[in-house]
């Protein structure tokens, strides 16, 4: 099952994903007209700030099992089993704030919906766009590759391959003195820590 994968280290905090998200969930689905709609379509992806003002994209992870689904006292939050997406039924939602309390990522907001009542509001993994064969709007618009639409296992394989390559480079450099994969892994990690410290 394809899902939106977030690579926080690549995010530059340009907020284009937020605009694209709001437009994609508006009535007209067009940026010109979406801004004058009422109620105004609100983005479902957020750019959070970590310590030292490092931006990171923050959106619903569609957890399984989902804490918000468990906390929901009206069962307005449910899982689309086929697509593996956690969705909110705004007609059942009573705006009690329980899901915001349960969400470990803090991605639930409360906004005015089309039926002029306030209800919980979060990422639906662009379920409509997906049924049209498109990728989610935030992924389409992200220019730096911080948001990727793919199989989680494939993406993890790619990351592992990257690390392996670095380790291999390390081994090759050091092959004269000590050919030890573990020591170069350790070195790689200490470099990462050093970079993190500099920030």
């Amino acid at each position, binding site marked *: 099952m394809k899902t939106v994968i977030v690579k926080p280290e690549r995010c530059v905090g340009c907020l284009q994903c937020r605009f694209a998200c709001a437009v994609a969930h508006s009535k007209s689905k067009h940026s010109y007209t979406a801004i004058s709609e009422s109620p105004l379509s609100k983005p479902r992806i957020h750019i959070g700030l*970590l310590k030292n003002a490092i931006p990171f994209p923050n959106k619903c992870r569609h957890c399984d099992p989902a*804490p918000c689904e468990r906390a929901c006292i*009206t069962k307005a939050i449910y899982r689309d089993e086929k697509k593996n997406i956690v969705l909110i039924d705004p007609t059942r939602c*009573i705006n009690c*704030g329980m899901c*915001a*309390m349960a969400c470990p990522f*803090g991605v639930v907001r409360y906004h005015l919906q089309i039926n002029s009542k306030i209800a919980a509001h979060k990422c639906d993994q662009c379920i409509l766009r997906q049924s049209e064969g498109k990728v989610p709007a935030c992924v389409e618009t992200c220019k730096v590759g911080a948001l990727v639409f793919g199989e989680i296992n494939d993406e993890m394989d790619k990351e592992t391959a990257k690390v392996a390559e670095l380790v291999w480079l390390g081994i090759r450099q050091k092959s004269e003195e000590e050919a030890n994969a573990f020591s170069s892994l350790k070195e790689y990690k200490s470099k990462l820590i050093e970079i993190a410290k500099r920030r």
Partner: protein
Amino acid sequence: MMRIVIVGLSAAGLSALETLIKHAKDCSITVITEERYEPYSRCLLTHYLGKELTLGGLFISKTSSYPSNVNCIFGRKVVSIEKDANKIQMDDGTHLFYDKLLLATGAEPVKPDYAAKSNRVFTLRHIEDANKIEGKLEDKATVVGGGFVGIKTAYGLIEREVKVNLVISSGYPLSVILDEETGKLIETELKNLGISVYTKSDVFEIAKKPKGVYSLLSSNKTLESDVIIVGKGVKPRLELAESAGIAIKNGILVNEFMETSVKNIFAAGDCVEAYDIARNETFINAIWPNAVEQGYFAAMNMLGSRMKYYGSIGYNSLKTKTFHLISAGVLKGKDIKTYQHYIPSRRQLRKIAFRGDIPVGMAFLNSPNDAGVMVNLIKRAKPLDVKPEEAVKGDFSLLQNLF
């Protein structure tokens, strides 16, 4: 074919049942409930009373959609357990054998002594309660109890333009979980909504009047209303567990696999006294999300998956049209130090309590966006990588502490 019996079909029972339907297609599952209605959400009763929801909006599951290996018995009570014979006895004399039994008997509201003196004193726990209140209510109500149930009931009623008196025995609302300062803020908010709040007073006597009831307060005031609704906490229902000789403190004691002291009997929900992460001892946190979670873990462990339940914390959300409070864990007590950040212009208060360097409690007023992160950090019970003074300001996300 394993025979699983669940006693009770509210939060914990329903959650366990749904988990079993998903994972145990080859078990025969029997659910026995005293209720006569389809599974409904108790938390919504205050909204039902406030006419925000109709009766149909309360129901959260359809028994007709259950697979054929599930058998639901409504309106029947389990009276005793014979643990050696793996047998339960029901009130109509029939008995059932089980391989695994889940007790999700829940809790009942604490009733004051004066409740017996008038037919206008109610608690709010079942649909029948709400319907009875509806029958007597005209335009004035007195709500006793400053906990979440009391406040939510009062808010529901004020929204349908009923005049509401809220009688609170302690000095401020939500005194069990909040500290005085935050409690006073909530009191002001409630007064602004139009609720008449009487703190440091309790109803000690009631007197009948032709179409209504007088309640005499300990602070020498007399309130007049159509009904008195009491929300002074709940008491776990333990009769059944006692009959089986299960170990009990204030609630049914369970280990991290939701097993009781008797083999093959599990327990979950409001009747259970599980480990409390924030308090670091066993405690009854009788709230809906905990019951759902415990039901899930009990069901998984009944199927033999040995999943460890990490423990509960008390947490709740109180949202009205003017304010949103999210609180979790404990805010006062021995060795607890609180840090706070108050922005009057936004009416925003963020308060985090620490024991040593581990966060154990929080109260966020009008700051819901990262409240969930903090709640889960309390559940995680690990030191943060930032100073408490920085953490409470909310200038940056604490999300990275979760990984």
